[in-house]
């Protein structure tokens, strides 16, 4: 079973997407939202690493850790984008890129 370590974990060199699902979370519905996120991640060929911090409805989907060639990465990206862009429950999604930040 892949170990994702949750949204706090960083997958060095890994591909990941942040996904905002339509408002499913509420009292008693958190489990349903989590299940839907799991199913969506599987459909996209990814693994649900869990909710992003305290942001309800926002999940981090990661590709199981491992180094991919450029071609493999592109194939994974295309599959994920194809699923996430068309899924009716996805309000917003974005592949996670590295940010450049400097101490001041």
């Amino acid at each position, binding site marked *: *079973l*892949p*170990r*994702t*370590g*949750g*949204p*706090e*974990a*960083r997958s*060095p060199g890994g591909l*990941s997407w*942040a996904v905002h699902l339509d408002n499913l979370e509420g009292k008693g519905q958190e489990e349903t939202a*989590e299940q839907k996120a*799991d199913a969506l991640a599987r459909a996209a060929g990814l693994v649900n690493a869990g*909710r*992003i*911090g*305290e*942001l309800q409805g*926002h999940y*981090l989907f990661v590709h199981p850790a491992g180094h991919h060639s450029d071609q493999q990465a592109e194939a994974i990206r295309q599959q994920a984008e194809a699923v996430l862009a068309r899924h009716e429950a996805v309000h*917003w999604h*974005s592949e*996670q*890129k*590295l*940010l*450049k*930040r*400097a*101490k*001041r």
Partner: protein
Amino acid sequence: SVHFNDPKYPQQWHLNNWRSPGRDINVTGVWERNVTGRGVTVVVVDDGVEHTIQDIAPNYSPEGSYDLNSNDPDPMPHPDAENGNHHGTRCAGEIAAVPNNSFCAVGVAYGSRIAGIRLLDGPLTDSMEAVAFNKHYQINDIYSCSWGPDDDGKTVDGPHQLGKAALQHGVMAGRQGFGSIFVVASGNGGQHNDNCNYDGYANSIYTVTIGAVDEDGRMPFYAEECASMLAVTFSGGDKMLRSIVTTDWDLQKGTGCTEGHTGTSAAAPLAAGMIALMLQVRPCLTWRDVQHIIVFTATQYEDRHADWITNEAGFSHSHQHGFGLLKAWRLVNAAKIWTSVPYLASYVSPVLKENKAIPLSPHSLEVLWNVSRTDLAMSGLQTLEHVAVTVSITHPRRGSLELRLFCPSGMMSLIGAPRSMDSDPSGFEDWTFSTVRCWGERARGSYRLVVRDVGDETLPAGTLHQWRLTLYGSAWSPGDIRDRQRLLEDAMSGKYLHDGFSLPCPPGLRIPEEVAYPITPNTLKTLVLVGCFAAFWTVYYVLEVYLSQRDVASPPVCQRPCRWLPRSRKAREEGAELESVPLCSSKDPVEAEAEAAGPVIAAAAPGPGLRGREEQVC
């Protein structure tokens, strides 16, 4: 009357400046009145905090801390080749270094608790930032962030979708609903003509943006001008001027103490510490109350190079120094008597499509939008706080653009300063600039955006495609603002700063935090599977043993009627609800019969297996 035995305290000029009186944050009077940040937690979001060092350990808050680079609860910095991961520890020391421990220095809010979130020492994504901004947000009151996008004078960047959402969520739900306080350093790009309006963290309405001033009261070489900067506090200057003395790490080349902390990085934590002092005297200050108090109490000071302009509400702002210097005495006394500002009201204009060419200087493109009384009626917005303009512009050289915004009062804000090093050809795509210079002014009236090209003639002209105006403010009237200014000035004598005076605070909201499950769902499924497997084999084995033993074992019957063993009289008298009766006991039957006094339970005659053996007493 405040004395500390910390050896470097006399050199902490920013706390108490004997050499240049007044060139400090005026905090000693606050300390004398026992306001030290007690009950407040400040978290340094940086490259880690060495919390084991003796100047930090007693004030360290593990509950508010986390390491997002290694995904564990301990934010200890990791040694690196550049010996650079001391930054967070230095910032933490400024805020909460322990006093009177004969070690190094003293923090501004030395009674507060200090946490660390290690975020900068590794690859960083939008989702990680979002996690950091809301990490332990019911424990951490203030987030001190001395970092941001590159200050190279050509970067336009800020929080992305998740980071923005986290900042907004933090001010709405953090700190029991009063709102997390995010303090950011305005940036060190002064030498590159940078401007903090190209930094989305610094020009966000959710952050307290702090710049720096040196010991001479001047803008240091690294400081940036900015219309969205709220205030300044002290930091290092050029080589001839003193820097900030604070705790350092003691890993690698570190000694545990430094006299060289500088940049806007050193200014922001001082502001965070002063805000901690404010929250001690009035914990229910909202994130907007904190910004208002800064605007109301920051002091303009003499600097010929600064363009101080007093706006319609009587607040003086300069692009170099914001609303002026932060003074702990003024901030804390104002906080003590502060009643909350009314709810946040906002107005958003339609998207104004222009598609007009941007002429070369001295000519300029002017576009107007009028905000009427009717436009503001629904929100109740009367006076301004932040004013934001979102633009889409195409231009072959972005750094040649200059944008100015005029509020209805005529107050001018240079929201998009020209940057000689920015040759980016992609223009601005829905970039939001903001200003605080119109704070407290009336919202109603005509807003004017002036755009011009200060570059040369060789390049094609740029185009303003569309823009949108967003006003933030409250239902306070200009009269309310004046009344509040008078009230605060009356409090500056310190007459309310004692335990005998306290305004009531409403209770906060109880907001549960995300529980980090130590067992992932997949691990749980594995455990359940293993458990079922173990249960199956247990049942199988029991059945196998039972069925195989059944043929050789005798029926479990007694040779004579079973007799109850006498219960403990004491237990019976006490009415004990439970009695434990062994199924069988190896006793001499005669002895057991002599003891037995209870009912007799008839039982079948024992089988052959028991004959001749010690009888079983049931």
